[in-house]
């Protein structure tokens, strides 16, 4: 995954917008605006920004409310199922081993992976009260994804830059990755799994067992 070049995209977008304005003038009709790719893209990125703002807002309001951490995690889990492309990220993280896994192994992996993602995301947002997410702008990220920037501030810690990578699954926007200070959650997770598998005889059952151990150690 290569990060979108913000300066370049700014310039191209400005150029596209400039051309769009000229075209508009020539056509003399505002109706054209909605059909232009630039305008459509701008609308799409507005929708992505709104989506990230809503997801981040829901998660932070749960984290900032009173209650035990276990309760909060139970409340966040359905939000992740609903708004994060868990299956897509899971397949990416298993890499070439996804094809080697039996359908049962794939299903077990995805079930465990839901909880792994919950941990990763709450780790990144922090499990403390007082977390605040400021959502910034959207830039294209690859052919059909966009990256929405945000700044996460937690009390007593320096603010971190986190980009939310968004793509559409069946017409619904979903979080496809989180990139914190240039570090991608899914690429890191993929490296962890592939290294573990290589050192454990490429056995997917051993990976599943290790994931179970890790999750139960964390839950206790």
């Amino acid at each position, binding site marked *: 995954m290569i*990060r979108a*070049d*913000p*300066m370049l995209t700014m310039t191209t977008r400005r150029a596209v917008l400039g051309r769009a304005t000229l075209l508009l003038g020539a056509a003399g009709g505002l109706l054209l605006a909605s059909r232009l790719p630039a305008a459509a893209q701008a609308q799409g990125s507005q929708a992505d920004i709104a989506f990230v703002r809503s997801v981040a807002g829901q998660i932070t309001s749960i984290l900032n409310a009173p209650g035990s951490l276990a309760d909060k995690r139970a409340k966040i889990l359905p939000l992740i199922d609903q708004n994060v492309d868990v299956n897509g990220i899971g397949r990416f993280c298993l890499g*070439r081993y996804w094809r080697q896994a039996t359908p049962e192994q794939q299903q077990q992996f995805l079930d465990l992976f839901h909880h*792994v993602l919950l*941990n*990763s995301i709450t*780790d990144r947002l922090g499990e403390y009260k007082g977390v605040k997410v400021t959502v910034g702008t959207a830039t294209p990220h690859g052919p059909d994804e966009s990256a929405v920037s945000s700044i996460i501030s937690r009390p*007593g810690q320096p603010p971190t830059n986190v980009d939310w990578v968004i793509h559409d699954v069946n017409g619904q926007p979903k979080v496809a990755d989180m990139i914190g*200070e*240039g*570090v*991608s959650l899914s*690429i*890191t997770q993929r*490296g*962890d*799994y*592939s*290294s*573990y598998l*290589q*050192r454990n005889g490429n056995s997917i059952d051993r*990976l599943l067992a*290790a*994931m179970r151990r*890790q999750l139960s*150690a*964390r839950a206790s």
Partner: protein
Amino acid sequence: MPWRRAAALSALAGVALSGCAKPPPDPDALADFKATNDPLEPTNRFFFSVNNTLDRYTLKPVAQGYVAVVPQPVRDGIHHVLGNMASPTLLADDVLAGKPRRAGTTFVRFVINSTVGVAGIFDVAKHLGYPAHEGDGGLTLASWGVPTGPYLYLPLVGPSSPRAATGFGMDIALSPLNYVPRGYGLLTLNWGLYGGGIIDTRAQLLDQLDEIYRDALDPYATIRSLYRQHTASEVEAIRQDHRMTTPDWYTQ
């Protein structure tokens, strides 16, 4: 003696070259092997476990004690002083990376923070529109197009690469404190800064490293991936830095 430290490090790196991993025969596994670019993995893992043991019994408890005893504002002040003392080296790195505007920011930050910021305790410059930025010898070499090379995990230093290790040596050579005539006062200051820098860095990483050990199945591979990605993004940040010489409030 920083020079002697660097010499010892390069000697150890030479020893490390003897423990190589064999490329796997399977094409998919070979692609992974090449992407990971960690031919010294067995040696690296050995130093990783040595460092972890040392860390568990020495550095981590010290960093935890430091966080428990010293209040956050004081720790912030110490962090700023250490950063300010490293400014001359950063300035040289900015210049060598061919980024005069970054160098200008570093210079202005040093002047403002050393004076108004009371010897660097307060980061006044940040609030005046001159925020801090990352830079070191390794990143400077990267800006010249030097490739990162295979992954190295060095004893005491941690995740590195031939490029970063060379840059580390450059930074020691560029540090003006190493050229002032020797005396006990300076020697103490130099060691104090060095030790303070290590504790400050470890304290900043307490939560992050705990999270890695809690969540990762293979912490070595996870740290390798994090280090690589983070370095790549820092290199990209330098490459994309086309900042204006004047702060934001001046042009707006």
